[in-house]
């Protein structure tokens, strides 16, 4: 008997306000043409001042629970991947639990850059396979605009806000579910993508605020170079661990950081357009939320069928990269 974690529910939340490239032209020195050719992004959604990572996460979670036809009280664990927690502590996972239900549920935040969602899925899958947990909420939520420097033209155009949530459920006798995962991290490239201030290395000070150290900093070209290598490696290694090859993959759901990174992987694998999900044009890089958003969109468009081999793949700060290979169905 093989116990596997199956995707029993999926929910997403995207804030209402839209920031277009034309809007950005008025804020920083940039142009729609420059942004589109270098990133593929046309607009992104921006959380309101009253919205936080946990409020977006909670809404996405409610939708995932409805989709799974269970209630929050049925959950026995919450894994929340985020890089912009409401507060460093207490955890966003505990905040979400509190917003969902009176019932205490164990959980924690997981920080692995934009790869956090992939890490969360593997963590939850392992917890389920241990036999100790049966219904786990895996959240990917970020309010990246809260750490985006709108005076930095190289990063201001990239990010949006959103949340996604999966309900992973134990199934004791199934061909469906998470087949394998591949996680990786290499701190050598840590400085390429970093929020320098606010931790024990550089506690908040007047100077850290004045020199904008609490904003996300990125070395674009070097990060791009890393990502172009990391994405295909993660896809191939994840599939290999499931005893599969690129030819077996029905749908690739890559982290939506930059269209050019996805295009490089599509060229390398010679994927036809129907085998890869791309929606970066409308949401920008929403960090750990890009994969749930893209997967949900593919599902709504009828692109997911029971038995399909779906590969989720991401790369991000750490540097981290990884993939989950899922046989779709519940």
């Amino acid at each position: 008997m093989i116990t596997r974690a199956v995707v029993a529910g999926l929910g997403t939340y995207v804030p209402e306000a839209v920031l277009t490239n034309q809007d950005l032209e008025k804020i920083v020195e940039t142009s729609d043409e420059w942004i589109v050719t270098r990133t593929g992004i046309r607009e992104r959604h921006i959380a309101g001042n009253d919205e936080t990572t946990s409020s977006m996460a909670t809404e996405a979670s409610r939708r995932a629970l409805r989709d799974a036809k269970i209630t929050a009280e049925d959950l026995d664990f919450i894994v929340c991947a985020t890089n912009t927690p409401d507060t460093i502590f207490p955890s966003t996972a505990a905040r979400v639990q509190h917003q969902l239900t009176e019932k205490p549920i164990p959980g924690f935040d997981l920080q692995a850059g934009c790869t956090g969602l992939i890490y969360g899925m593997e963590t939850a899958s392992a917890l389920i396979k241990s036999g100790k947990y049966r219904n786990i909420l895996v959240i990917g939520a970020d309010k990246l605009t809260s750490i985006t420097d709108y005076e930095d033209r190289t990063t201001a155009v990239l990010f949006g806000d959103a949340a996604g949530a999966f309900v992973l459920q134990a199934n004791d006798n199934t061909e469906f579910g998470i087949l394998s995962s591949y996680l990786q991290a290499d701190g050598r490239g840590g400085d390429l993508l970093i929020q320098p201030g606010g931790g024990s290395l550089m506690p908040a000070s007047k100077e850290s605020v004045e020199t904008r150290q609490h904003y996300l900093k990125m070395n674009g070209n070097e990060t791009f170079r890393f990502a172009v290598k990391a994405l295909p490696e993660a896809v191939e290694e994840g599939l290999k661990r499931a005893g599969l090859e690129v030819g077996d993959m029905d749908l690739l759901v890559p982290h939506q950081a930059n269209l050019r990174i996805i295009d490089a992987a599509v060229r390398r694998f010679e994927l036809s357009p129907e085998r890869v999900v791309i929606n970066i044009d409308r949401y920008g890089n929403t960090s750990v939320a890009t994969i749930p958003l893209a997967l949900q969109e593919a599902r709504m468009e009828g692109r997911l069928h029971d038995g399909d081999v779906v590969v989720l793949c991401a790369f991000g700060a750490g540097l981290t990269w990884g993939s989950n290979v899922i046989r779709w169905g519940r």
Partner: protein
Amino acid sequence: MANKEQVFDKVKEIIVDQLGVDEEEVTSEASFIDDLGADSLDIVELIMALEEEFGLEIPDDEAEKISTVHDAVEYIRENA
């Protein structure tokens, strides 16, 4: 390393493939950005493709100095 013509031909092939330009445009003096329409990300991908083809690693500060086809060919001849 192989002679200049061989390196040039291989580099040209990669440039044509990566940048989607015509072979005739890839002259020795051609600048990636000014003549071949590349942007910074194209150059990153091009450098990666050259590294893979010639089995070398081009450090950032060296890569920054490669702005023409000639620069690329010379770097490869000296380092591969």
